[in-house]
Each structure stands twice: as C-alpha cells, then as structure tokens.
C-alpha cells in the first residue's frame, strides 16, 4: 500500500459519498411518491382517519418531505440511522440482525461459485473454439436462462421434498455440524450459483483469452512453457483485474438481488428486510438498506480495483 493507492482509496471514498447521497435522494424521491405512508400502512385497512393523523404526528410524517430528508441526513451524519416506524426498533439493530445472514449466504455462495466460475472460464478459454468451450458456454447459458424462482422451486421439489436429502428452508440457528450446514445451505447456494456463475465464467473466459492473445504469452510459448502453465502462471495473474471486477459485480448481486431466493427459502436477509420496509413505508429502513447495497457495491468495486492494482506490479509500485 502506498500513497498512490491511498489517494485512490480516498478519491473513491469521496466519490462514494457523493454516490450515496444521490442514491438517498433518488430513493427518497421515489418513495415520496409512494401512495400511503407509514402511518396508514401500520394501521392497516380499517384505520380511522383520526388514528392515522395521530400516528402521523407522532412519527413526524406531517412535516414536508424535504425537511424529513434533511432531518434524516443530519441524524445519519451523527451515526443515527433512525428508528423503524413499523416496530419501533432502531434501524441499526434490525440491520445487524440480518447482515450476518446475508453475508453468510453470500459467503457460502461465493465460496462455491467463484472457483466454479474460474474453472469453467479458464477451461473454456484454454480450449477456445473447441468442443469443450462450446459445451461449457452452452451450459453456462442454459444455467442463466431459467428463471431463478423456477430453479429454486424445482430444486426444492427434487432434493427436499422427493429425495429428502436437503432442507427446504435455509434459516437454521442450530447448525452444529458441517453436514447440517450443507443440508441447510445447499439449495439456496445452488440456486444462486446458477444465477451468477455464468456471468463470471464468461468474463473470466474473456479476460483470460485477452491475455492469451498478448505478446508475452506468445513469448512464453516460444520459451517452451506448457499450455497449462501459461494459463495459470502467465495469463491468470494478469487477468485478475477484469476477473475481480466481474466477481465484484456478481457478489454485489448476492447482497441485494437475492430477494427471490430469500423468499423461497425463507431466509432472513437484507433483501427481504428491504421488501418489508417498502411495504411498510418504513423510510428510514428503506434508506438504510439502499445505502448498504450501494456502499457494498462501491466497496466491492473498489476492492476489485485494489486487486487489480496489487496484482499488477506496475500499479503496485507506482
């Protein structure tokens, strides 16, 4: 880590803050048009106008939107993410309950999907244009061509209902053995892999092929280096940048894009928390979730760029 990298991180941090601000404004603007508000929503179908008015006053919803936004922003600056209006818990606490779950699922999925994608991508890059390549590219395509919820439901039907090998639900607090972990996480991880592996594998393939076309790879071949060694020792280290980027994009999907999987497997993650928040018009929570997704996305992309820098001595030693 040197001053240049530090400067990069600082700059990104600044840009990230701006991006977050834009996100919060966009989210606020859209949610401002949402019909009904937290008071209406929490009192339900048969609420009387007096009740709604009283609750609105209590929650401060009677203030103009801009004022509420600024208020929220001020509080955020002091580290207070606000309170969830639907159940009066601090937003931070609600999030803290869900974030580990999301990270767990994302982590497990990443552990499976990233190596798989790398193997698929590198495999097809090595056999570029050949039968293996066509085959793998077809498989990865087919994997992504089936709607997520169908994969998930089908998988549950086969592995949980008919075979009874795996669990149809994924939230278990009492995981004691690795086998149990496997039983619980296998299905959602499998479903998510289907969604993200293809993209990563394709980008890996492209990045590796990009390097395989470079003069230094030709040079390595002319030194008598074997194809496998060329890919692993020469091309791959230089392809880390774009691959890390593809991985970062896919992993950011694992945080916010998994609402379907969370629903089907009844997994309490951040995505379903946000769906709840939208339904309950729980603005502080919606904002916090969006901020988190956005921050995670930016962090992942930054991490990918740092990977690219660290894997590249030219950038590393600048």
């Amino acid at each position, binding site marked *: 880590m040197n001053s240049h990298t530090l400067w990069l991180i600082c700059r990104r941090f600044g840009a990230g803050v701006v991006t977050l601000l834009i996100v919060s404004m966009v989210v606020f603007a859209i949610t401002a048009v949402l019909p009904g508000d937290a008071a209406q929503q929490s009192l339900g179908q048969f609420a009387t106008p007096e009740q709604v008015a009283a609750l609105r006053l209590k929650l401060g919803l009677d203030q103009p939107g801009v004022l509420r936004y600024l208020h929220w922003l001020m509080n955020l600056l002091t580290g207070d993410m606000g309170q969830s209006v639907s159940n009066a818990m601090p937003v931070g606490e609600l999030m803290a309950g869900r974030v580990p779950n999301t990270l767990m699922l994302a982590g497990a999925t990443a552990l499976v999907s990233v190596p798989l994608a790398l193997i698929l991508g590198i495999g097809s890059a090595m056999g570029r244009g050949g039968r293996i390549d066509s085959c793998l590219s077809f498989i990865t395509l087919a994997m992504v061509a089936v*709607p997520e919820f169908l994969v998930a439901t089908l998988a549950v*039907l086969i592995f949980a209902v008919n075979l009874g090998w795996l669990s149809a639900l994924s939230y278990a607090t009492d995981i004691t053995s690795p086998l149990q972990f496997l039983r619980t996480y296998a299905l959602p991880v499998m479903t998510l892999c289907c969604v993200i592996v293809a993209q990563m594998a394709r980008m890996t393939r492209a*990045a590796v092929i990009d390097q395989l076309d470079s003069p230094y790879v030709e040079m390595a071949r002319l030194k008598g280096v074997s194809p496998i060694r060329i890919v692993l020792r020469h091309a791959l280290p230089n392809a880390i940048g774009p691959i890390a980027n593809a991985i970062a994009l896919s992993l950011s999907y694992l945080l916010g894009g998994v609402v*379907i999987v969370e629903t089907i497997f009844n997994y309490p993650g951040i995505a379903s928390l946000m769906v709840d928040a939208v339904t309950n018009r729980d603005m502080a929570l919606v904002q916090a979730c969006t901020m988190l997704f956005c921050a995670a996305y930016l962090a992942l992309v930054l991490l990918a760029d740092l990977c690219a820098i660290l894997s590249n001595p030219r*950038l590393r030693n600048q």
Partner: protein
Amino acid sequence: MNPLIAKSRPASSALALAKVSGNPSWLGLVGATVCVIWLLVALFGPWLAPHPVGEVISDNIFEGFSLAHPFGTDYLGRDMLSRVLVGARFTVGLSLVAALLASFFGTGCALLSVVSPKWLDEIISRIMDAFISIPSKMLALIMVSAFGSSVTLLICTAVISYIPGSFRVARSMAVNIEALEYVQVARTRGEGKLYVACREILPNMLNPVLTDLGLRFGYIVLLLSGMSFLGLGVQPPDADLGSLVRENIGGLNQGAMAIIIPALAIGTLTIGVNLLIDYLSSRRGRRSGGH
C-alpha cells in the same frame, strides 16, 4: 486518479464483451433461427392463438398434451398454446423495447459525458453508479408500489435498471474512441460537440453497442420473469412468459406442460439471443483482426 485504473474497469469489460465469443458458426445459426422464430411468434402469435387468452376451456387444470390443447391447460383450465403465443409477444416486445431504450439512453449519456466537461461527466457517472447500485428488483418493487403495474412502468423500470450498464459499456468505448486521432482532427477542425458525438464517435461504437443491446435483451427477459415473482407484470388475462411460469408453478410437481412450455420458451429465447450475439461478435472480432 491514475488513468490506467480509471479506465481499466470499463475498458476491460468492453474488451471482454467483445471477446466473450468464439463459438462455431453452426451454433450462431441455431441462435439466429431461434431468434427469428421467436420474432415471428411475437409478431403473429396472437393471431394464431386458437382460443381467447383468458377463456377457461377445460375443467381439468394442468392437462397434458392433447390434440385439442397441444400445450395442455393452465391452472385455471385455459389453453396454454394460446397463452404462450400471446405471452411471447409481451416478453419479446417488452424486452426489445426496454433493451432498445436502455441502450439508446445509456449510449446517449455516454456520448454526452465523453464530449462534456469533466464535471458533467463526473456527475453523470455518479448518477449512473447510484442507479447501478440499487438492485433492479428492489427498484422494480418500489416503482410498482409507487406508480402501479403497467406495461409502460415495466418498461420504465427495466430501462432505468439497465441504462447504467449500457452507459458503462458505451462510455468505456466512447472514451477510447474519443482519444483516437480522427476525433482529435474533427475537434481541431472546429466541429461542434454534437457532430463529434454523433458522426465521429457513434458510428464506430455501434457494433459493440448492438452486442450489448443483445445481452441486455437477455437480461431483461430474465428480469421480467423475476418481477413476475414479485407479482409485477403485464395485466391479466395476458401474461408474459415469466408470469406464465410463475402462475403455473403449482403444476411443477406433476411436471405439467403449463410450466415446462413457458420455461422452455424463456430458455430458448435467452439462449438463442446469446448464441446469435456470440456469433456476431466473434465474427466482428475476426473481421477487425484481419486488417
């Protein structure tokens, strides 16, 4: 910021995009055929449908193949063939329109940001970053809650979700082209920004932009099917292919045609489009490599 890093991400993805390819031509042919078939279905399907799309024609739900109902019946006892024929128009049509618009706006913003002063470029980039970081399904959910579910809204949502991606690819390409000497020549000739963007830069990035458009089409087909899970989609009795899968999911355990057919339809559509794109981009790669 180091220019190498600043550019490495989009440039590499654009490059990668161009190189995500290389399948033999027969696969491309298969892709092209599938795409043409689906296009025809989308154009003429509704007229070929033997039954009105919402009519319950059988007391039996999740029927299998029969001469009267080649694709069986759905969860209410409606003719699946008719529903798929009509549904294809929605899926293909919506995705196509959304993909075209997303590419149009994405590319437009990219061109704008490339010929604009740095501060405007920065603002556009930040806004795009902001939108790309909001998960598309969440955005869809909020949008539908706010504005109700309609075809226009579905398109809007898909467009907003995919503009940033299109923007990124287009911008990285445009930045590279902008640095080329013929653009510099045009600038030193005193050409306006509009001319530089539309006449000098745009024609040269059209091919990758079209490739990107195809990829986005595939993504949008899948996004729409994902949105059907969240209860968003075209208005009944019509249904896009994703909604058809979703509404008939109860027939999954009995392997009903009502779920297999639309799932296959989505599969063939996305795979077909991808194969075609791969083929086209690999051909383009070879062509430009030949010189």
